[in-house]
Protein backbone atom coordinates (compact mmCIF):
# COMPACT_ATOMS: atom_id res chain seq x y z
CA UNK A 1 0.00 0.00 0.00
CA UNK A 2 1.30 3.35 -1.04
CA UNK A 3 0.02 4.87 2.18
CA UNK A 4 2.65 3.10 4.15
CA UNK A 5 5.64 3.99 2.08
CA UNK A 6 8.25 5.81 4.05
CA UNK A 7 7.82 9.53 4.45
CA UNK A 8 10.84 10.14 2.24
CA UNK A 9 9.24 8.38 -0.75
CA UNK A 10 6.03 10.26 -0.24
CA UNK A 11 7.58 13.62 0.40
CA UNK A 12 5.19 16.26 -0.80
CA UNK A 13 2.41 13.77 -1.59
CA UNK A 14 -0.93 14.39 0.08
CA UNK A 15 -1.14 10.74 1.21
CA UNK A 16 1.38 11.61 3.95
CA UNK A 17 -1.44 12.69 6.17
CA UNK A 18 -2.53 9.06 6.48
CA UNK A 19 0.87 8.04 7.73
CA UNK A 20 0.71 10.66 10.44
CA UNK A 21 -2.73 9.40 11.46
CA UNK A 22 -1.65 5.75 11.32
CA UNK A 23 -3.32 4.91 14.64
CA UNK A 24 -6.60 5.12 12.78
CA UNK A 25 -5.66 2.44 10.29
CA UNK A 26 -4.24 -1.04 10.61
CA UNK A 27 -2.97 -3.60 8.19
CA UNK A 28 -4.75 -6.97 7.96
CA UNK A 29 -2.24 -9.80 8.28
CA UNK A 30 -4.35 -12.02 6.08
CA UNK A 31 -5.41 -9.92 3.07
CA UNK A 32 -2.69 -7.26 3.66
CA UNK A 33 -5.26 -4.52 3.09
CA UNK A 34 -5.27 -1.37 5.18
CA UNK A 35 -8.48 -1.18 7.12
CA UNK A 36 -10.17 1.33 9.39
CA UNK A 37 -9.35 0.51 12.98
CA UNK A 38 -12.69 1.59 14.45
CA UNK A 39 -14.50 -0.74 12.06
CA UNK A 40 -12.25 -3.62 13.15
CA UNK A 41 -12.92 -2.91 16.82
CA UNK A 42 -16.67 -2.75 16.26
CA UNK A 43 -16.73 -6.22 14.72
CA UNK A 44 -14.81 -7.95 17.53
CA UNK A 45 -11.44 -7.42 15.83
CA UNK A 46 -12.30 -9.02 12.54
CA UNK A 47 -11.07 -7.68 9.19
CA UNK A 48 -13.99 -5.97 7.43
CA UNK A 49 -12.50 -6.87 4.02
CA UNK A 50 -11.65 -10.57 4.35
CA UNK A 51 -13.24 -11.50 7.70
CA UNK A 52 -9.90 -12.74 9.14
CA UNK A 53 -10.13 -12.64 12.95
CA UNK A 54 -7.18 -10.61 14.22
CA UNK A 55 -5.09 -11.98 17.06
CA UNK A 56 -6.45 -10.78 20.38
CA UNK A 57 -5.11 -10.81 23.91
CA UNK A 58 -6.22 -13.30 26.54
CA UNK A 59 -8.09 -10.54 28.35
CA UNK A 60 -9.95 -9.54 25.20
CA UNK A 61 -10.85 -13.16 24.52
CA UNK A 62 -12.14 -13.70 28.04
CA UNK A 63 -14.23 -10.52 27.81
CA UNK A 64 -15.63 -11.80 24.51
CA UNK A 65 -16.54 -15.26 25.80
CA UNK A 66 -17.36 -15.02 29.51
CA UNK A 67 -20.52 -13.43 30.84
CA UNK A 68 -19.94 -9.97 32.27
CA UNK A 69 -18.02 -10.15 35.53
CA UNK A 70 -18.15 -13.94 35.43
CA UNK A 71 -14.47 -14.87 35.27
CA UNK A 72 -12.49 -15.67 38.36
CA UNK A 73 -8.80 -16.21 37.66
CA UNK A 74 -6.96 -19.15 39.26
CA UNK A 75 -3.24 -19.57 39.94
CA UNK A 76 -2.46 -16.13 38.53
CA UNK A 77 0.70 -15.77 40.57
CA UNK A 78 2.56 -18.73 39.05
CA UNK A 79 5.81 -17.64 37.50
CA UNK A 80 8.54 -19.28 35.48
CA UNK A 81 11.88 -19.96 37.02
CA UNK A 82 14.88 -20.50 34.80
CA UNK A 83 15.55 -24.19 35.41
CA UNK A 84 18.17 -24.55 32.67
CA UNK A 85 19.91 -21.22 33.26
CA UNK A 86 19.20 -20.52 29.59
CA UNK A 87 20.97 -17.66 27.89
CA UNK A 88 21.34 -17.10 24.16
CA UNK A 89 21.51 -13.56 22.82
CA UNK A 90 19.43 -12.62 25.87
CA UNK A 91 18.87 -14.22 29.24
CA UNK A 92 15.61 -16.20 29.52
CA UNK A 93 14.83 -14.28 32.70
CA UNK A 94 15.07 -11.02 30.76
CA UNK A 95 12.82 -12.37 28.01
CA UNK A 96 10.25 -13.31 30.63
CA UNK A 97 10.48 -9.90 32.21
CA UNK A 98 9.91 -8.08 28.93
CA UNK A 99 7.01 -10.39 28.02
CA UNK A 100 5.47 -9.62 31.39
CA UNK A 101 5.94 -5.89 30.92
CA UNK A 102 4.52 -6.06 27.41
CA UNK A 103 1.40 -8.07 28.27
CA UNK A 104 0.76 -7.33 31.93
CA UNK A 105 0.51 -11.11 32.41
CA UNK A 106 2.74 -13.41 34.45
CA UNK A 107 2.65 -16.17 31.84
CA UNK A 108 1.28 -17.17 28.43
CA UNK A 109 -2.01 -18.65 29.62
CA UNK A 110 -4.78 -17.25 31.83
CA UNK A 111 -6.97 -19.83 33.60
CA UNK A 112 -10.07 -19.49 35.71
CA UNK A 113 -13.66 -20.40 36.40
CA UNK A 114 -16.16 -18.65 34.15
CA UNK A 115 -19.78 -18.58 33.15
CA UNK A 116 -20.64 -18.59 29.46
CA UNK A 117 -24.29 -17.95 28.64
CA UNK A 118 -24.96 -18.89 32.24
CA UNK A 119 -23.10 -22.22 32.04
CA UNK A 120 -20.28 -22.63 34.54
CA UNK A 121 -17.01 -23.85 33.05
CA UNK A 122 -13.26 -23.83 33.50
CA UNK A 123 -11.80 -21.50 30.89
CA UNK A 124 -8.12 -21.27 29.88
CA UNK A 125 -6.99 -18.74 27.28
CA UNK A 126 -3.58 -18.31 25.66
CA UNK A 127 -1.98 -14.98 24.94
CA UNK A 128 0.20 -15.10 21.83
CA UNK A 129 1.90 -11.83 22.80
CA UNK A 130 3.57 -13.60 25.72
CA UNK A 131 6.58 -15.29 24.07
CA UNK A 132 4.44 -16.56 21.21
CA UNK A 133 2.04 -18.29 23.58
CA UNK A 134 4.73 -20.90 24.14
CA UNK A 135 4.27 -23.70 26.67
CA UNK A 136 6.81 -24.29 29.41
CA UNK A 137 6.53 -25.39 33.06
CA UNK A 138 4.09 -22.72 34.21
CA UNK A 139 1.70 -23.06 31.28
CA UNK A 140 1.66 -26.85 31.74
CA UNK A 141 1.15 -26.54 35.48
CA UNK A 142 -1.64 -23.95 35.18
CA UNK A 143 -3.52 -26.00 32.59
CA UNK A 144 -3.12 -29.17 34.66
CA UNK A 145 -4.38 -27.43 37.80
CA UNK A 146 -7.33 -26.01 35.84
CA UNK A 147 -8.25 -29.47 34.50
CA UNK A 148 -7.91 -30.96 38.00
CA UNK A 149 -10.14 -28.20 39.34
CA UNK A 150 -12.73 -29.11 36.71
CA UNK A 151 -12.60 -32.74 37.87
CA UNK A 152 -13.02 -31.64 41.46
CA UNK A 153 -15.91 -29.24 40.72
CA UNK A 154 -17.37 -31.44 37.95
CA UNK A 155 -17.14 -28.70 35.33
CA UNK A 156 -16.36 -28.78 31.62
CA UNK A 157 -13.02 -27.43 30.36
CA UNK A 158 -12.51 -24.97 27.52
CA UNK A 159 -9.02 -24.16 26.28
CA UNK A 160 -8.55 -21.41 23.69
CA UNK A 161 -5.12 -21.98 22.13
CA UNK A 162 -2.83 -19.51 20.39
CA UNK A 163 0.69 -20.85 20.57
CA UNK A 164 3.83 -21.57 18.63
CA UNK A 165 4.35 -24.75 20.68
CA UNK A 166 6.76 -25.83 23.39
CA UNK A 167 9.12 -23.14 24.74
CA UNK A 168 12.74 -23.83 23.84
CA UNK A 169 14.16 -21.99 26.86
CA UNK A 170 12.89 -24.63 29.29
CA UNK A 171 14.01 -27.46 27.02
CA UNK A 172 12.90 -30.96 27.94
CA UNK A 173 10.72 -29.63 30.78
CA UNK A 174 8.57 -27.87 28.17
CA UNK A 175 8.26 -31.11 26.19
CA UNK A 176 7.10 -32.98 29.28
CA UNK A 177 4.20 -30.54 29.76
CA UNK A 178 2.66 -32.19 26.69
CA UNK A 179 2.48 -35.47 28.59
CA UNK A 180 1.37 -33.79 31.81
CA UNK A 181 -1.56 -31.87 30.28
CA UNK A 182 -2.63 -34.85 28.15
CA UNK A 183 -2.61 -37.07 31.23
CA UNK A 184 -4.83 -34.55 33.04
CA UNK A 185 -7.24 -34.66 30.10
CA UNK A 186 -7.26 -38.46 30.30
CA UNK A 187 -8.45 -38.07 33.87
CA UNK A 188 -11.10 -35.56 32.81
CA UNK A 189 -12.33 -37.94 30.10
CA UNK A 190 -12.45 -40.90 32.46
CA UNK A 191 -14.64 -38.74 34.74
CA UNK A 192 -16.95 -38.20 31.76
CA UNK A 193 -16.44 -34.44 31.80
CA UNK A 194 -16.38 -32.64 28.45
CA UNK A 195 -13.45 -30.76 26.97
CA UNK A 196 -13.90 -28.15 24.28
CA UNK A 197 -10.79 -27.03 22.40
CA UNK A 198 -10.84 -23.75 20.46
CA UNK A 199 -7.99 -23.28 18.00
CA UNK A 200 -7.02 -19.77 17.00
CA UNK A 201 -4.27 -18.29 14.87
CA UNK A 202 -1.71 -19.81 15.25
CA UNK A 203 -1.76 -23.18 17.02
CA UNK A 204 1.28 -25.28 16.20
CA UNK A 205 3.95 -27.62 17.54
CA UNK A 206 3.77 -29.22 20.96
CA UNK A 207 0.51 -27.48 21.85
CA UNK A 208 -1.28 -28.92 18.81
CA UNK A 209 0.36 -32.30 19.46
CA UNK A 210 -1.09 -32.46 22.97
CA UNK A 211 -4.16 -30.84 24.55
CA UNK A 212 -5.24 -28.70 21.56
CA UNK A 213 -6.14 -31.76 19.43
CA UNK A 214 -7.76 -33.73 22.26
CA UNK A 215 -11.09 -31.91 22.48
CA UNK A 216 -14.33 -33.87 22.62
CA UNK A 217 -15.28 -31.00 20.34
CA UNK A 218 -12.67 -29.01 18.42
CA UNK A 219 -13.60 -25.58 17.05
CA UNK A 220 -11.35 -23.35 14.95
CA UNK A 221 -11.49 -19.69 14.05
CA UNK A 222 -11.43 -19.01 10.29
CA UNK A 223 -8.07 -19.08 8.52
CA UNK A 224 -6.09 -19.93 11.66
CA UNK A 225 -2.75 -21.65 11.05
CA UNK A 226 -3.01 -25.05 12.74
CA UNK A 227 -0.46 -27.80 12.44
CA UNK A 228 2.24 -29.94 13.96
CA UNK A 229 5.24 -28.67 12.01
CA UNK A 230 5.51 -25.08 10.85
CA UNK A 231 4.97 -24.46 7.12
CA UNK A 232 8.55 -23.21 6.69
CA UNK A 233 10.00 -26.41 8.14
CA UNK A 234 7.77 -28.52 5.91
CA UNK A 235 8.63 -26.53 2.79
CA UNK A 236 12.36 -26.95 3.57
CA UNK A 237 11.92 -30.67 4.16
CA UNK A 238 9.92 -31.54 1.04
CA UNK A 239 11.50 -28.82 -1.16
CA UNK A 240 8.18 -28.19 -2.88
CA UNK A 241 5.62 -25.43 -2.70
CA UNK A 242 2.86 -26.12 -0.18
CA UNK A 243 -0.72 -26.62 -1.35
CA UNK A 244 -3.11 -23.63 -1.33
CA UNK A 245 -4.60 -23.01 2.09
CA UNK A 246 -2.37 -25.70 3.66
CA UNK A 247 -2.68 -25.95 7.45
CA UNK A 248 -5.45 -23.36 7.65
CA UNK A 249 -8.64 -24.09 9.60
CA UNK A 250 -10.63 -24.78 6.44
CA UNK A 251 -7.96 -27.27 5.28
CA UNK A 252 -8.18 -29.10 8.61
CA UNK A 253 -11.98 -29.18 8.38
CA UNK A 254 -11.68 -30.61 4.88
CA UNK A 255 -9.31 -33.32 6.15
CA UNK A 256 -11.50 -34.26 9.09
CA UNK A 257 -9.23 -32.90 11.82
CA UNK A 258 -11.59 -30.33 13.40
CA UNK A 259 -15.33 -30.31 14.02
CA UNK A 260 -16.28 -26.84 12.95
CA UNK A 261 -14.87 -23.53 11.74
CA UNK A 262 -16.69 -20.77 13.57
CA UNK A 263 -16.67 -17.03 12.86
CA UNK A 264 -15.72 -14.98 15.85
CA UNK A 265 -19.10 -13.29 16.16
CA UNK A 266 -20.73 -16.75 16.46
CA UNK A 267 -18.16 -18.26 18.82
CA UNK A 268 -19.78 -17.46 22.15
CA UNK A 269 -23.17 -18.73 21.10
CA UNK A 270 -21.67 -21.91 19.61
CA UNK A 271 -19.79 -22.53 22.85
CA UNK A 272 -22.99 -21.88 24.82
CA UNK A 273 -24.93 -24.45 22.76
CA UNK A 274 -22.20 -27.06 23.23
CA UNK A 275 -22.08 -26.44 26.99
CA UNK A 276 -25.88 -26.73 27.11
CA UNK A 277 -25.68 -30.10 25.35
CA UNK A 278 -23.24 -31.54 27.89
CA UNK A 279 -24.72 -29.96 31.00
CA UNK A 280 -26.91 -32.05 33.26
CA UNK A 281 -28.50 -29.10 35.06
CA UNK A 282 -30.12 -25.81 34.02
CA UNK A 283 -27.92 -22.81 33.30
CA UNK A 284 -27.41 -20.22 36.01
CA UNK A 285 -29.09 -16.90 35.30
CA UNK A 286 -26.79 -14.72 33.18
Amino acid sequence: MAWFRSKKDDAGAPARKVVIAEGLWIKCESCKDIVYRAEVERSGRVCPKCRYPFRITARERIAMLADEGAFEEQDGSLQSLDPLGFKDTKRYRDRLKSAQDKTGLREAVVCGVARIGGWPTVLCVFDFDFMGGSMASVVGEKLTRAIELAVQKRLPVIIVSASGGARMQEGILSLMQMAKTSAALERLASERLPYLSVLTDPTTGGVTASFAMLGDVILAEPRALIGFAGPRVIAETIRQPLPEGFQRSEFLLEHGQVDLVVERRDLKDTVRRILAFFADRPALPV
Partner: protein
Amino acid sequence: MPDGLDFERPLLDLENRIAELRADADPLGRSDEIAKLEDRLARLRQRTYSTLTAWQRTQLARHPRRPRTLDYIRLLTEDFVELHGDRVFGDDKAIVGGLGRLDGESVVVIGHQKGRDTRENLARNFGMPHPEGYRKALRLMELAERFGKPILTFIDTPGAYPGVGAEERGQAGAIARNLREMAGLRTPIIAVVIGEGGSGGALAIGVGNRVLMLEYAIYSVISPEGCAAILWGDRAKAPEASELMRITAPDLLRLGVIDAIIPEPVGGAHRDWEGAAANVRAGVRDHLWQIRSKSGDELVRERYEKFRKIGAWEEESLPAGQR
Protein backbone atom coordinates in the same frame (compact mmCIF):
# COMPACT_ATOMS: atom_id res chain seq x y z
CA MET B 1 36.95 -47.75 10.86
CA PRO B 2 35.12 -45.42 8.50
CA ASP B 3 32.58 -44.34 11.12
CA GLY B 4 35.10 -43.10 13.67
CA LEU B 5 34.05 -39.75 15.16
CA ASP B 6 36.70 -37.05 15.56
CA PHE B 7 37.14 -37.65 19.26
CA GLU B 8 37.27 -41.42 18.75
CA ARG B 9 40.20 -41.32 16.30
CA PRO B 10 43.11 -41.16 18.77
CA LEU B 11 41.59 -44.16 20.54
CA LEU B 12 41.07 -46.07 17.32
CA ASP B 13 44.67 -45.32 16.25
CA LEU B 14 46.01 -46.74 19.51
CA GLU B 15 43.79 -49.80 19.21
CA ASN B 16 45.04 -50.41 15.68
CA ARG B 17 48.68 -50.17 16.75
CA ILE B 18 48.12 -52.65 19.56
CA ALA B 19 46.40 -55.00 17.13
CA GLU B 20 49.33 -54.72 14.72
CA LEU B 21 51.86 -55.51 17.46
CA ARG B 22 49.78 -58.49 18.52
CA ALA B 23 49.76 -59.76 14.95
CA ASP B 24 53.56 -59.52 14.90
CA ALA B 25 55.50 -62.73 14.23
CA ASP B 26 56.96 -62.57 17.73
CA PRO B 27 54.28 -60.99 19.96
CA LEU B 28 55.95 -62.14 23.18
CA GLY B 29 59.04 -60.05 22.40
CA ARG B 30 56.81 -56.97 22.18
CA SER B 31 54.75 -57.59 25.31
CA ASP B 32 56.27 -54.65 27.23
CA GLU B 33 55.41 -52.29 24.41
CA ILE B 34 51.88 -53.72 24.15
CA ALA B 35 51.30 -53.34 27.90
CA LYS B 36 52.48 -49.74 27.77
CA LEU B 37 50.17 -48.92 24.88
CA GLU B 38 47.24 -50.65 26.55
CA ASP B 39 47.82 -48.62 29.65
CA ARG B 40 47.87 -45.45 27.60
CA LEU B 41 44.71 -46.51 25.79
CA ALA B 42 42.87 -47.14 29.06
CA ARG B 43 43.83 -43.73 30.42
CA LEU B 44 42.97 -41.89 27.21
CA ARG B 45 39.64 -43.70 27.01
CA GLN B 46 38.82 -42.83 30.60
CA ARG B 47 39.69 -39.18 29.98
CA THR B 48 37.76 -38.98 26.69
CA TYR B 49 34.54 -40.57 27.92
CA SER B 50 34.44 -38.84 31.28
CA THR B 51 34.55 -35.42 29.65
CA LEU B 52 32.24 -35.89 26.65
CA THR B 53 30.51 -32.69 25.54
CA ALA B 54 26.79 -32.63 24.77
CA TRP B 55 27.63 -32.47 21.08
CA GLN B 56 29.94 -35.51 21.28
CA ARG B 57 27.11 -37.38 23.00
CA THR B 58 24.77 -36.24 20.22
CA GLN B 59 27.18 -37.72 17.69
CA LEU B 60 27.28 -41.00 19.63
CA ALA B 61 23.48 -41.03 19.94
CA ARG B 62 23.22 -40.67 16.15
CA HIS B 63 26.12 -42.98 15.33
CA PRO B 64 25.29 -44.97 12.16
CA ARG B 65 26.56 -48.20 13.73
CA ARG B 66 24.60 -47.79 16.96
CA PRO B 67 22.16 -50.64 17.69
CA ARG B 68 18.56 -49.84 16.71
CA THR B 69 15.21 -51.06 17.98
CA LEU B 70 15.19 -54.22 15.84
CA ASP B 71 18.74 -55.03 17.02
CA TYR B 72 17.65 -54.82 20.65
CA ILE B 73 14.54 -56.86 19.88
CA ARG B 74 16.73 -59.55 18.30
CA LEU B 75 19.24 -59.51 21.17
CA LEU B 76 16.71 -59.30 24.03
CA THR B 77 13.57 -61.18 23.06
CA GLU B 78 12.60 -64.65 21.98
CA ASP B 79 9.83 -65.70 19.62
CA PHE B 80 9.31 -62.15 18.36
CA VAL B 81 6.46 -61.70 15.88
CA GLU B 82 6.36 -58.33 14.17
CA LEU B 83 2.88 -56.87 13.60
CA HIS B 84 2.20 -54.31 10.89
CA GLY B 85 -0.19 -51.50 10.06
CA ASP B 86 -2.58 -49.08 11.72
CA ARG B 87 -5.72 -50.75 10.27
CA VAL B 88 -6.67 -47.39 8.76
CA PHE B 89 -4.16 -46.15 6.22
CA GLY B 90 -0.92 -48.07 6.03
CA ASP B 91 2.14 -49.53 7.67
CA ASP B 92 4.71 -47.00 8.81
CA LYS B 93 8.16 -48.57 8.69
CA ALA B 94 9.61 -45.82 10.91
CA ILE B 95 7.90 -47.50 13.87
CA VAL B 96 8.10 -51.24 14.44
CA GLY B 97 6.29 -53.31 16.99
CA GLY B 98 5.17 -56.76 17.88
CA LEU B 99 4.84 -59.61 20.35
CA GLY B 100 7.85 -61.02 22.12
CA ARG B 101 9.07 -62.87 25.17
CA LEU B 102 11.56 -61.24 27.51
CA ASP B 103 13.09 -63.51 30.15
CA GLY B 104 10.20 -65.91 29.72
CA GLU B 105 7.53 -63.20 30.01
CA SER B 106 5.25 -61.97 27.22
CA VAL B 107 5.78 -58.33 26.37
CA VAL B 108 4.66 -55.99 23.59
CA VAL B 109 7.69 -54.19 22.15
CA ILE B 110 7.42 -50.98 20.11
CA GLY B 111 10.13 -48.65 18.85
CA HIS B 112 11.27 -46.13 16.30
CA GLN B 113 13.38 -47.75 13.59
CA LYS B 114 16.15 -45.88 11.81
CA GLY B 115 18.02 -47.36 8.87
CA ARG B 116 21.71 -48.08 8.67
CA ASP B 117 22.42 -47.06 5.07
CA THR B 118 20.78 -44.76 2.52
CA ARG B 119 18.52 -47.40 1.02
CA GLU B 120 17.32 -48.60 4.40
CA ASN B 121 16.95 -45.05 5.69
CA LEU B 122 14.72 -44.13 2.77
CA ALA B 123 12.53 -47.16 3.52
CA ARG B 124 12.43 -46.24 7.22
CA ASN B 125 12.07 -42.49 6.51
CA PHE B 126 15.13 -41.94 8.76
CA GLY B 127 13.08 -43.09 11.72
CA MET B 128 10.62 -40.19 11.37
CA PRO B 129 7.09 -41.53 11.76
CA HIS B 130 3.85 -40.50 10.06
CA PRO B 131 0.51 -40.54 11.93
CA GLU B 132 -0.10 -44.16 10.94
CA GLY B 133 3.06 -45.13 12.82
CA TYR B 134 1.70 -43.61 16.02
CA ARG B 135 -1.67 -45.26 15.39
CA LYS B 136 0.03 -48.62 14.95
CA ALA B 137 1.88 -48.06 18.22
CA LEU B 138 -1.35 -47.20 20.00
CA ARG B 139 -3.13 -50.22 18.55
CA LEU B 140 -0.38 -52.49 19.89
CA MET B 141 -0.36 -50.78 23.28
CA GLU B 142 -4.12 -51.25 23.58
CA LEU B 143 -3.65 -54.89 22.66
CA ALA B 144 -1.10 -55.22 25.44
CA GLU B 145 -3.50 -53.69 27.96
CA ARG B 146 -6.37 -55.92 26.84
CA PHE B 147 -4.31 -59.04 27.45
CA GLY B 148 -2.52 -57.78 30.56
CA LYS B 149 0.98 -57.70 29.02
CA PRO B 150 3.64 -55.12 29.85
CA ILE B 151 4.78 -52.65 27.19
CA LEU B 152 8.42 -51.95 26.36
CA THR B 153 9.21 -49.04 24.04
CA PHE B 154 12.49 -47.98 22.41
CA ILE B 155 12.86 -44.30 21.55
CA ASP B 156 15.16 -43.39 18.66
CA THR B 157 13.91 -40.70 16.28
CA PRO B 158 14.96 -37.26 15.03
CA GLY B 159 11.24 -36.40 15.37
CA ALA B 160 7.84 -36.94 13.78
CA TYR B 161 7.95 -36.32 10.03
CA PRO B 162 7.15 -32.76 8.92
CA GLY B 163 5.36 -33.35 5.61
CA VAL B 164 2.16 -32.57 3.76
CA GLY B 165 0.66 -36.05 4.06
CA ALA B 166 1.56 -36.25 7.73
CA GLU B 167 -0.32 -32.99 8.39
CA GLU B 168 -3.30 -34.01 6.25
CA ARG B 169 -3.64 -37.26 8.13
CA GLY B 170 -3.41 -35.60 11.55
CA GLN B 171 0.17 -35.86 12.83
CA ALA B 172 -0.53 -33.62 15.83
CA GLY B 173 -3.72 -35.45 16.79
CA ALA B 174 -2.06 -38.84 16.48
CA ILE B 175 0.75 -37.84 18.85
CA ALA B 176 -1.71 -36.18 21.23
CA ARG B 177 -3.92 -39.26 21.42
CA ASN B 178 -0.92 -41.46 22.22
CA LEU B 179 0.03 -39.14 25.09
CA ARG B 180 -3.48 -39.23 26.53
CA GLU B 181 -4.10 -42.94 26.00
CA MET B 182 -0.70 -44.01 27.32
CA ALA B 183 -1.45 -42.04 30.49
CA GLY B 184 -4.51 -44.22 31.05
CA LEU B 185 -3.19 -47.68 30.15
CA ARG B 186 -3.67 -50.14 33.00
CA THR B 187 -0.52 -52.12 32.29
CA PRO B 188 3.18 -51.54 33.07
CA ILE B 189 5.03 -49.36 30.55
CA ILE B 190 8.81 -49.04 30.37
CA ALA B 191 10.32 -46.63 27.86
CA VAL B 192 14.01 -46.67 26.97
CA VAL B 193 15.69 -43.84 25.08
CA ILE B 194 18.29 -45.78 23.07
CA GLY B 195 19.52 -43.04 20.70
CA GLU B 196 17.86 -39.80 19.73
CA GLY B 197 14.78 -38.64 21.64
CA GLY B 198 13.48 -36.05 19.19
CA SER B 199 10.66 -33.99 20.67
CA GLY B 200 6.95 -34.87 20.50
CA GLY B 201 7.63 -37.63 18.00
CA ALA B 202 9.72 -39.37 20.68
CA LEU B 203 7.42 -38.64 23.62
CA ALA B 204 4.47 -40.15 21.70
CA ILE B 205 5.74 -43.60 22.74
CA GLY B 206 7.46 -42.37 25.91
CA VAL B 207 4.78 -41.96 28.59
CA GLY B 208 6.08 -44.77 30.77
CA ASN B 209 5.91 -45.75 34.41
CA ARG B 210 9.66 -45.78 34.08
CA VAL B 211 11.72 -43.87 31.55
CA LEU B 212 15.27 -45.16 31.20
CA MET B 213 18.01 -43.71 29.05
CA LEU B 214 21.22 -45.12 27.63
CA GLU B 215 24.29 -43.28 28.86
CA TYR B 216 25.06 -41.48 25.59
CA ALA B 217 21.50 -41.04 24.32
CA ILE B 218 19.95 -37.57 24.04
CA TYR B 219 16.38 -36.36 24.56
CA SER B 220 15.24 -32.85 23.68
CA VAL B 221 12.36 -30.53 22.85
CA ILE B 222 13.94 -29.56 19.52
CA SER B 223 17.03 -30.80 17.67
CA PRO B 224 20.25 -28.89 18.34
CA GLU B 225 20.14 -27.89 14.64
CA GLY B 226 16.59 -26.54 14.98
CA CYS B 227 17.50 -24.67 18.14
CA ALA B 228 20.55 -23.12 16.47
CA ALA B 229 18.44 -22.06 13.48
CA ILE B 230 15.99 -20.26 15.76
CA LEU B 231 18.61 -18.65 18.00
CA TRP B 232 21.24 -17.66 15.47
CA GLY B 233 19.73 -18.44 12.07
CA ASP B 234 22.50 -20.98 11.52
CA ARG B 235 22.07 -24.75 11.77
CA ALA B 236 25.85 -25.16 11.77
CA LYS B 237 25.88 -23.78 15.31
CA ALA B 238 24.19 -26.96 16.56
CA PRO B 239 27.19 -27.88 18.78
CA GLU B 240 26.82 -24.61 20.71
CA ALA B 241 23.04 -25.07 20.95
CA SER B 242 23.41 -28.61 22.25
CA GLU B 243 25.37 -27.30 25.25
CA LEU B 244 22.61 -24.84 26.18
CA MET B 245 19.73 -27.27 25.90
CA ARG B 246 20.42 -29.85 28.66
CA ILE B 247 19.84 -32.92 26.52
CA THR B 248 22.23 -35.48 28.03
CA ALA B 249 21.25 -38.39 30.28
CA PRO B 250 22.85 -36.87 33.42
CA ASP B 251 21.01 -33.58 32.75
CA LEU B 252 17.68 -35.35 32.36
CA LEU B 253 18.19 -37.40 35.49
CA ARG B 254 18.88 -34.18 37.40
CA LEU B 255 15.75 -32.54 35.95
CA GLY B 256 13.60 -35.48 37.04
CA VAL B 257 12.63 -36.44 33.49
CA ILE B 258 14.19 -39.92 33.49
CA ASP B 259 14.37 -42.52 36.25
CA ALA B 260 17.72 -44.15 35.55
CA ILE B 261 20.72 -44.16 33.22
CA ILE B 262 21.69 -47.45 31.58
CA PRO B 263 25.49 -47.60 31.28
CA GLU B 264 26.99 -48.22 27.85
CA PRO B 265 29.96 -50.46 27.09
CA VAL B 266 33.37 -48.80 26.84
CA GLY B 267 33.39 -46.47 23.85
CA GLY B 268 29.62 -46.54 23.39
CA ALA B 269 26.88 -48.97 22.39
CA HIS B 270 28.08 -49.09 18.76
CA ARG B 271 31.36 -50.73 19.84
CA ASP B 272 29.68 -53.64 21.63
CA TRP B 273 26.06 -54.45 20.78
CA GLU B 274 25.87 -57.51 23.01
CA GLY B 275 27.24 -55.55 25.96
CA ALA B 276 24.74 -52.75 25.35
CA ALA B 277 21.85 -55.22 25.06
CA ALA B 278 22.89 -56.96 28.28
CA ASN B 279 22.80 -53.64 30.13
CA VAL B 280 19.42 -52.76 28.64
CA ARG B 281 18.13 -56.18 29.68
CA ALA B 282 19.33 -55.65 33.24
CA GLY B 283 17.80 -52.17 33.46
CA VAL B 284 14.45 -53.21 32.00
CA ARG B 285 14.29 -56.33 34.18
CA ASP B 286 15.03 -54.34 37.34
CA HIS B 287 12.36 -51.75 36.71
CA LEU B 288 9.78 -54.15 35.32
CA TRP B 289 10.24 -56.29 38.40
CA GLN B 290 9.50 -53.30 40.61
CA ILE B 291 6.18 -52.49 38.93
CA ARG B 292 4.87 -55.68 37.35
CA SER B 293 2.71 -56.79 40.27
CA LYS B 294 1.03 -53.40 40.78
CA SER B 295 -2.66 -53.04 39.98
CA GLY B 296 -3.94 -51.13 36.96
CA ASP B 297 -5.13 -48.33 39.23
CA GLU B 298 -1.76 -48.03 40.90
CA LEU B 299 0.10 -48.04 37.59
CA VAL B 300 -2.11 -45.27 36.19
CA ARG B 301 -1.89 -43.20 39.37
CA GLU B 302 1.89 -43.53 39.66
CA ARG B 303 2.39 -42.69 35.99
CA TYR B 304 0.18 -39.63 36.43
CA GLU B 305 2.11 -38.45 39.49
CA LYS B 306 5.44 -39.03 37.76
CA PHE B 307 4.66 -36.62 34.90
CA ARG B 308 2.51 -34.37 37.11
CA LYS B 309 5.50 -33.16 39.10
CA ILE B 310 7.83 -32.35 36.19
CA GLY B 311 8.60 -28.65 35.82
CA ALA B 312 9.85 -25.67 37.79
CA TRP B 313 7.94 -22.59 38.94
CA GLU B 314 7.35 -20.27 41.84
CA GLU B 315 4.19 -18.74 43.18
CA GLU B 316 3.17 -16.23 45.76
CA SER B 317 1.99 -17.46 49.16
CA LEU B 318 4.03 -20.62 48.67
CA PRO B 319 7.79 -20.75 49.12
CA ALA B 320 9.64 -20.54 45.80
CA GLY B 321 11.11 -23.76 44.63
CA GLN B 322 10.94 -26.74 42.41
CA ARG B 323 8.21 -29.30 42.59
